[in-house]
């Protein structure tokens, strides 16, 4: 039994709690069935246990394969946090309306700056407004289908890169280190979401996976 437990502990490393529970349940069932078959054929119980665990193979190999198809703890954390954030935004009226009205206000501010002959400020404010619109207004629109989600993600990344260059102008490359640091969290989340999309059947996708 201890041997099976140590096999399972290695096989479920870095998997989310739900994934780990699923693996434990299915491997335990498999082990029980193998043990039962071996005992029925008259094999010594201790040897039968050893054989059942041996037949499962290397737990590290199984763990690598499980991590490709089941949610890992870091992916589950990304899903959980994004769910909590979107719930917080949607359920708190003043936050929702501030975020929804901010892009319009920033657009007006940008026009005023331009009228006051402050083109750099106007450009920066416009970039910020576009960013906010992309991240906070679009999710309220009906984009939750596979194709629309793909289009949104492509537009988001193109716009994000364009805005960085628009904001920094010709100095864009000089500020590459700063841009990389700022974009790293966004890129990290996007990478995790790509992995999650591969693992979850489309029917089980939460809304955030379309974004």
């Amino acid at each position: 039994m201890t041997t099976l437990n140590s096999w399972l502990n290695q096989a479920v490393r870095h998997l989310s709690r739900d994934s780990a529970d699923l693996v434990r349940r299915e491997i335990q069932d498999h082990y029980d069935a193998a043990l039962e078959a071996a005992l029925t054929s008259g094999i010594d119980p201790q040897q039968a246990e050893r054989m059942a665990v041996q037949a499962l193979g290397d737990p590290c190999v199984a763990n690598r394969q499980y991590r490709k198809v089941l949610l890992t703890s870091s992916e589950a954390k990304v899903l959980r946090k994004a769910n909590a954030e979107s719930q917080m935004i949607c359920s708190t009226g003043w936050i929702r309306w501030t975020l929804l009205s901010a892009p319009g206000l920033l657009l007006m501010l940008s026009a005023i700056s331009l009228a006051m002959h402050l083109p750099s400020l106007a450009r920066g404010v416009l970039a910020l407004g576009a960013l906010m619109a992309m991240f906070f207004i679009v999710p309220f629109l009906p984009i939750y289908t596979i194709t629309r989600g793909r289009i949104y993600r492509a537009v988001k990344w193109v716009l994000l890169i364009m805005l960085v260059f628009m904001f920094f102008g010709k100095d864009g490359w000089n500020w590459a280190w700063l841009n990389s640091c700022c974009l790293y969290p966004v890129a990290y989340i996007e990478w995790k979401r790509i992995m999650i999309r591969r693992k979850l059947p489309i029917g089980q996708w939460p809304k955030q996976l379309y974004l």
Partner: protein
Amino acid sequence: MNLKGTLPTLILEVLANEPSHGYRIAQTIKQSSDGLLDFKEGTLYPALHKLENEGSVESYEGAENGRSRRYYRITRSGRKALNEDRAEWQQLSRAVSMILGEA
């Protein structure tokens, strides 16, 4: 013998006959190949989950000898994938036989 990458096709082939649970799938593959195709049973379930994520198989709770078990059955897209895999495998096998036959 370990034929890397063929496990999903073998699983679909077993499930094309009847819905089954993990242990029985493993035993059927081993017995059908006279023990020649020997794979580690711990790798069966990741392959089953992958097929489930792709929509080729679906799982449901069933019971055998009074014990609750997770059964898997092939879907329509799974049958289509199996037919494609079969055709691909026959082509590959024919090509290899032609080369080995010439040697």
